[in-house]
């Protein structure tokens, strides 16, 4: 091949990898000797390797390492006790994948008592700077009670009971009654086949006098993929076995109002009430997760994750509720 015809990058890359047969390779080399553009292309290919090799290899961030240690500690716990124990919010999607809702009590009996050992690497609660500049310790409601153990049999049988009873309730309606908006459409949204809603029957109570929307304090460590949804079992729920919801302190209430105004502007309505507010963690740091309806019928919610200063710690996103 000579003149203005050139070999394409793929052929040149294959030459460099020694993938061409002897005759073809000889022909391409011959061409390269006299063709500057192809020589240039070959250099570009070599540069790709160098650019890739030069990419810095960052160490695993401490937060991720801790998260993994925690997950493995939970795994070790399971192994020690020889049973399935879920101390973190479980992946209901996966767990329930094989459990048709029609089958009552599809899961084996499991230990319900909380783990014997408190986790040593519990995050130390940080102080919050109050309005007057003094530092108040971050409120830890229910800190004295042990960390919530997500007891599956309870949730599973509850979910089964709803189906058996034929109540036909949807999480949406329950959420709506909790948020007190009264504007819930009485239409059940199409339910996904494996709808994970362990807390379906737990009506969400308003957190306190000043918060007329559900506020939870799950201490759950949210990850970005969890926040992609479905969220109904997390943000909308205080979780099975917790019974009551937390109260929102003034800072959270103010922040909800602020975010709510922002969402309202986006939707062109007056500040909407959140569907759920949960005080927990995001990637290991204390954070408050808020969900607002974007479009009830499309099952779309806005998700905001903010820190103590009401600053976004994760880009606001649209997620699925169920």
């Amino acid at each position, binding site marked *: 091949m000579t003149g203005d015809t050139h070999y394409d990058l793929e052929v040149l890359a294959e030459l460099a990898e020694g993938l061409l047969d002897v005759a073809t390779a000889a022909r391409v080399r011959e061409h390269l000797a006299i063709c500057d553009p192809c020589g240039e292309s070959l250099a570009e290919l070599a540069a790709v390797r160098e650019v890739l090799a030069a990419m810095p290899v960052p160490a695993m961030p401490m937060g*991720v390492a801790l*998260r993994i240690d925690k997950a493995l500690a939970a795994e070790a716990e399971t192994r020690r006790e020889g049973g399935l124990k879920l101390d973190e919010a479980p992946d209901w999607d996966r767990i329930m994948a094989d459990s048709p809702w029609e089958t009552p009590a599809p899961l084996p009996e499991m230990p319900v008592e909380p783990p014997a050992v408190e986790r040593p690497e519990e995050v130390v609660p940080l102080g919050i700077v109050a309005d007057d500049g003094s530092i108040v310790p971050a409120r830890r409601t229910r800190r004295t009670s042990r960390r919530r153990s997500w007891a599956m049999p309870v949730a599973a049988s509850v979910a089964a009971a709803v189906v058996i009873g034929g109540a036909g309730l949807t999480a949406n309606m329950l959420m709506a009654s909790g948020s007190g908006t009264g504007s819930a459409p009485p239409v059940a949204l199409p339910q996904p086949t494996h709808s994970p809603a362990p807390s379906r029957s737990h009506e969400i109570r308003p957190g306190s006098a000043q918060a007329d929307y559900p506020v939870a304090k799950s201490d759950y460590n949210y990850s970005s993929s969890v926040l992609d949804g479905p969220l109904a079992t997390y943000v909308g729920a205080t979780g099975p076995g917790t019974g009551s919801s937390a109260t929102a302190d003034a800072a959270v209430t103010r922040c909800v109002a602020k975010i709510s105004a922002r969402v309202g502007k*986006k939707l062109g309505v007056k500040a909407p009430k959140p569907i759920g507010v949960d005080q927990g963690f995001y990637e290991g740091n204390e954070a408050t997760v808020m969900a607002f309806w974007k479009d009830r019928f499309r099952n779309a919610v806005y998700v905001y994750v903010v820190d103590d200063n009401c600053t976004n710690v994760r880009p*606001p996103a649209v997620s699925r509720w169920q």
Partner: protein
Amino acid sequence: MNLPPDSPPAAQQAAGSASTDADLLTRHIGGDPHAFSEIVRRHRDRMWAVALRTLGDPDEAADAVQDAFVSAYRKADSFRGEAAVTTWLHRIVVNACLDRMRRKSIRPVADDELVEAAERDTPIPDHTGDRDVSMEVSAALKLLPTDQRAALVLVDMMGYSVEDAAQVLEVPTGTIKSRCARGRAKLAPILSHLRNRSDLTRVSSAKGAELRDG
């Protein structure tokens, strides 16, 4: 597994009193509660790098590495001695990443408002030159088919031999070579404008220098 220049073999022998990864894994299977943590401690940075490069997103990478380590913890007894523990771990991590990418690619495309909201509400990160290059490379990698990306991450970015990459991905070496070649051919036009800047980057990257000088 032939580990690249900046990797643990030396450190491994120095740190563990003759505890190889295989020993540790055996002890883990036998019920030693600390053995697996040691394996994680030894390899987590490498696994993180592989996952981050393959997925191009720290949140996704964190989830993938966590899934992979938990999975390795559970199925340790399915490890067969003929492969190196590192190869086995890499395989689990890479597969966790590929699973995630496949699942992601069938997800509906994110709401355009999402992007708009993200741009408005997130502070713009401070762009240093290195970060810029790094982000451009990540973005370019995302344009490649997953198999080509995985091969390039292992061979060109992590510096593994073609043979090691073939073992991790469980394909013949020729397949690795051809995936790398095709991937590089696709990246070359996208990254060609980075060539001059890469000269700068190379100076600041010890790993790049090491790999370049053998």
